[in-house]
Each structure stands twice: as C-alpha cells, then as structure tokens.
C-alpha cells in the first residue's frame, strides 16, 4: 500500500512539474528550471545520505566534474551539446571510481573530513588551471553552440522550454533511480548497512560493494546535475564547486527529509525560493543556510516532508 502511494504521489508531482511550464511566467519558469537541476543533485546526494546515512562534504567535485567537462567541451567547440552531457556525466562516474576506493576506507567523521579535503583539492585545481577553467570569474557558454540537431528538427537548448524539459528529464532519471532502489528489497539491505555496518558484514554481505554501488550512482547523478546546470545556466565558475555546493545538497536533502523520494525536490524548491527572495534584500543571504541548518538539527531532524508526514498524514 505504502509503495503504491509513493508511486502515485511521485507520478502526480511529475505531472504537476510538466504542466507548470505552461502557466509560469518567465522568471518563475527559469527559477523552476534551476530548482529541478538542483533537485537532481539533491536526489543524488540523498541516495548516499538517505539509504546509507553517509554524510559527504565533497559532492561538489562530482557536480563540478559534470559542470566543467560539459561546459568546457561546449565552449571549446569539441563536441555537440548532447555528447557533452554524456561525457560530462561519465567523467563524474570516473571521478567517483577514482576517489571512492580511498574515501570508502573511512567512515563517520573521518569520511566527512576526507571528502571535504578531496573536494577542496578539486576546487583549488579549478583555480590553478584558471586559463582553461576561467577560475573564480568563470566562463559563459556561447549561445550558438547550444543547438542540437535531432533528426529533422533542431533542438535549441537556449530556449526556456527546452531547458525546462531537459531539467525535468534529468529529474525524472534521478528520482526514478531513488524510487527503484526504494521499492526494491535492496533498500532493506542498505538499511541494514546504515544501521550496523559490521553486523551486516558478519552476515555475509559484501558491504563495500554495496556502498560503492550507491556511491557511484550518487556521483554519476551529481555529475548529471552539474552537466545540466552548465547547459541551463550557460555558466561555469569556481564558486559552483566550492564547499558551499557540498553543504547545499546536504541541506536540501535534510530539509525535505532524508531517505524519501520526493523530499529532495521539496527541500530544494523551498530553500531555493527563500534564498532567491533573500538575495534581493541582502548580500549575506547565505545566513539563511546557516539558520535553517541549525533549526533543522534542533527541531525537525526528519525534515519538512517527514514532519508533515508524522504530524498530519500519519503515514
């Protein structure tokens, strides 16, 4: 029953997201595109946080791998946008394959510290090679490189409609991944690892392999989000791979409720809108991130969606 309810609510949300594009005025339309791109990132992050209880403060490097590879391929006129996305996502997977064996050796606080350090190395590398990456200032993707021949038609990725639907498609991929894991028996095994890693290992499960699988899925989808960000925002810059962008998905996932399928989207939408409003009043709008993190930890550890569920829906 519960599974069916999850699927139905998932489909309803997707339908609403699809229909929203026909009613939104230009500014909310582009805001919604940004929210969906970030929600992919939040969903990716939530795979690790929700299913395995692992907090990573280094996901910005996977997001960044997708962002920079896709962005730079397009800027330097090497491939068409579609291949650029594929290569971008694949490079995030590769970065995951390269880093996971080291990162997954540790757990708890050490895992958090190590992920934070590796992503900082990535950030500094972006700054170091600023003649290629554009460094802090960043680079803008030229408009004329963003058209995509699809059979007889020409998909113009600069049009708001195409960007909206590209983001929506990415979100469907990300949320379906979480939903599939959520509905499968596999999630029970992941829950066992989350609850007690040593005991699960003792029961004969290859804990490392399952952690690696989820970790790679998470880094790949983070890369997808980064890739789509570079296309939809037409901008790549070092600030997007800073520590802020590792803490953001943590906050989005926590806000929405970790381990839920729709939570990351809810959390992302909520926070992005609030930050968007706040940034027009003050330059220190990031203080909202701080206040919500503290408020969450102190009052609603199960997240917004979790809170609503337990208070009103009693699911």
């Amino acid at each position, binding site marked *: 029953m519960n599974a069916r309810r999850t699927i139905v609510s998932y489909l309803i949300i997707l339908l609403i997201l699809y229909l929203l594009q026909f009613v939104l005025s230009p500014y909310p339309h582009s805001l919604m595109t940004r929210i969906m791109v970030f929600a992919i990132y939040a969903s990716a992050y939530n795979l690790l946080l929700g299913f395995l209880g692992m907090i990573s*403060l280094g996901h910005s490097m996977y997001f960044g791998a997708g962002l920079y590879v896709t962005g730079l391929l397009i800027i330097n006129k090497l491939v068409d946008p579609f291949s650029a996305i594929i290569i971008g996502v694949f490079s995030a997977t590769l970065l995951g394959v390269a880093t996971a064996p080291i990162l997954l050796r540790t757990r708890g606080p050490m895992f958090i510290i*190590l992920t934070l350090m590796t992503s900082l190395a990535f950030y500094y590398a972006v700054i170091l090679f600023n003649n290629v990456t554009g460094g802090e200032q960043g680079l803008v993707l030229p408009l004329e490189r963003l058209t995509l021949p699809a059979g007889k038609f020409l998909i113009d990725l600069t049009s708001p409609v195409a960007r909206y639907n590209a983001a929506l498609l990415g979100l469907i991929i990300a949320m379906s991944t979480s939903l599939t894991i959520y509905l499968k028996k596999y999630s029970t095994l992941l829950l066992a690892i989350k609850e007690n890693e040593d005991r699960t290992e003792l029961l004969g499960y290859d804990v490392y392999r399952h952690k690696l699988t989820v970790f790679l899925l998470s880094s790949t989808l983070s890369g997808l989000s980064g890739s789509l960000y570079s296309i939809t925002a037409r901008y790549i810059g070092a600030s997007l791979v800073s520590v802020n962008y590792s803490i953001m998905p943590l906050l989005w996932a926590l806000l929405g409720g970790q381990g839920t399928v729709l939570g990351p989207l809810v959390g992302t939408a909520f926070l992005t809108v609030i930050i968007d409003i706040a940034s027009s009043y003050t330059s220190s709008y990031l203080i909202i*991130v701080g*206040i919500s993190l503290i408020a969450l930890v102190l009052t609603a550890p199960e997240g917004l969606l979790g809170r609503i569920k337990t208070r009103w829906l009693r699911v």
Partner: protein
Amino acid sequence: MDPLSAFFLGVLDGLTEGLLFALVAIGFTLSYGILRIVNLTHGEFYMIGAVMTWVLYEAAKNPLYSLIIAPLFSAFLAVIIERTVLSRIKYAPEPTIIATAGLLYIIQQSTLMVIGPYSRSVPPPLSTVISTPWFGYSSYKIAVALASIMIAATLWIFLKRTNLGLRMRCVQQDAELAKNFGINVRKIYSLGFGLSAALAAAAGVLIVPIRQAHYLMGFDALLMSLLAVTIGGMGSLRGTFLASVMIGLFGGIVAVFTSPTTSRILSIMLVVVVVIFKPHGILECVKK
C-alpha cells in the same frame, strides 16, 4: 634570488605558518578530544580573532589589546554555542557536523554584514627586518613563531600540571567515569570548547599583520586543521602539533618553487596518501 636561499626562505615561512596553524589545529583536536565532536565552525573563531584585531586597531590603534580581547570574545561565543546548540543535540557526531556547518554560515555571513567583503589590513607592530647574508626576514614573523610556541607550551603545562588540566584529561579519556568521580563534565565541556576557540582566535590575531582579515579566511584555517588532525591523529595534541609544523614546512617549500595553490593541492594529496597507509595518524605506531 638563488635557489638555495629561496629554499631557506620557504623553510622559514613554512615553519612560521606551520607553528601558527598548529594553534588552530590544536584547538580543533582539543575539542575533538574532550567533546568528541568535529567542529566545522573552528575556522570561524580564527576569522573572528583576525577581524576583531582589525576592529580594535581601528578603534585604539594598538593591536596588542586584541591578543587578550579577541580570544576571550571567541571563547565566550563558543561557550554560548556549546550551551545553546551542541549540548542540546547531545554532541551526536552527524547532527554536530550539520549544526557546526550551520554556525559557520551564521558567523561568516554576520561578519560580512558588519565589515563588508573587503580585505582589512593591520600594520605589524614590529617592522624591523632581520638581515641574513642571503635575504632579509621580517622580525614580526619570527615573533609570531615564538609566540605560537609559547602559547602551545603554556597549554601543554596547563594540561599537564594544573588541577583543571588534569580534569580535562580525565574527561578526554572517559567522560562517564569522570562524572562518577565527581567531575563537573558539563563545565569541562564548556571550558574545553571555549579554550579551543580561544586558541584559534589567538592564531587569527597573530596572522592579521601577515595576511589580511577577510570574512572568508576561516576556510583556510579549517582546512589546515583538518589536514593536521588527519595525519596527526584526531584528539592527539602532540601528533597534531607535529603534523601541522610538517604540513607548514612542506607547503612553504613547495610554494617557493610553484604557487600557493599548487602547494595546497599537493598538501591535500600528501595527506590523502598518509590516510591510505596510516588511517589513525602518524603517531599511532609510536604509541603501541
């Protein structure tokens, strides 16, 4: 400048930086040892120390006051944080990391509101240049290195020779047992966290004349602490101190021949390699 004197200059700069950041890192490891928490806000206490030095310099034109006032203020702030936030989430590892990440933003962004996004500089109180046959070296940097050693030594004596230090070490070893022996663990937690923040702030005060005060400077100190505790061993004061000096030296020497950014990347990679072979820090083998 010939390569050899450049090398020595790098050694001196690295040593100064290593000793200075050792104060920050010791503070970080102290709060881990006593409260068992990873405090991501730690770098912000360092930033507060630096920013307050600038504020006090603008107000009183004497940077020496800040060496007392800034650490006290940071300690006060830390105790408030410990009482109102950390004790309420019972120092649980993951919530603490989330909460301290939140506090990081609150402190950082409040500072941005107060001083704006500018780099603020304070002239060094000592401006003599000590000349060697190969190059001249700022006497202030030497004073900073000596001051760092003195502060670290004072802390060491405090922990080893005083009654309060003994209680802190008791809590560090076993908080439950310490409670049963009548030690006020709550008080020790607050004191330990305050002390840890004061150390970071002291380093912040000392560094302003070398580097400028900026609201984002805390990340650097946090990164240095993380690097130092990772290879020094979480909670080990001696290991953290040694590791910090080593990282400083390494960074200083590498920076002479490449760039500060490259040296940071290489330091991080070095630490990651150490983690692969010695997951519990370099001193782990010495202890056994």
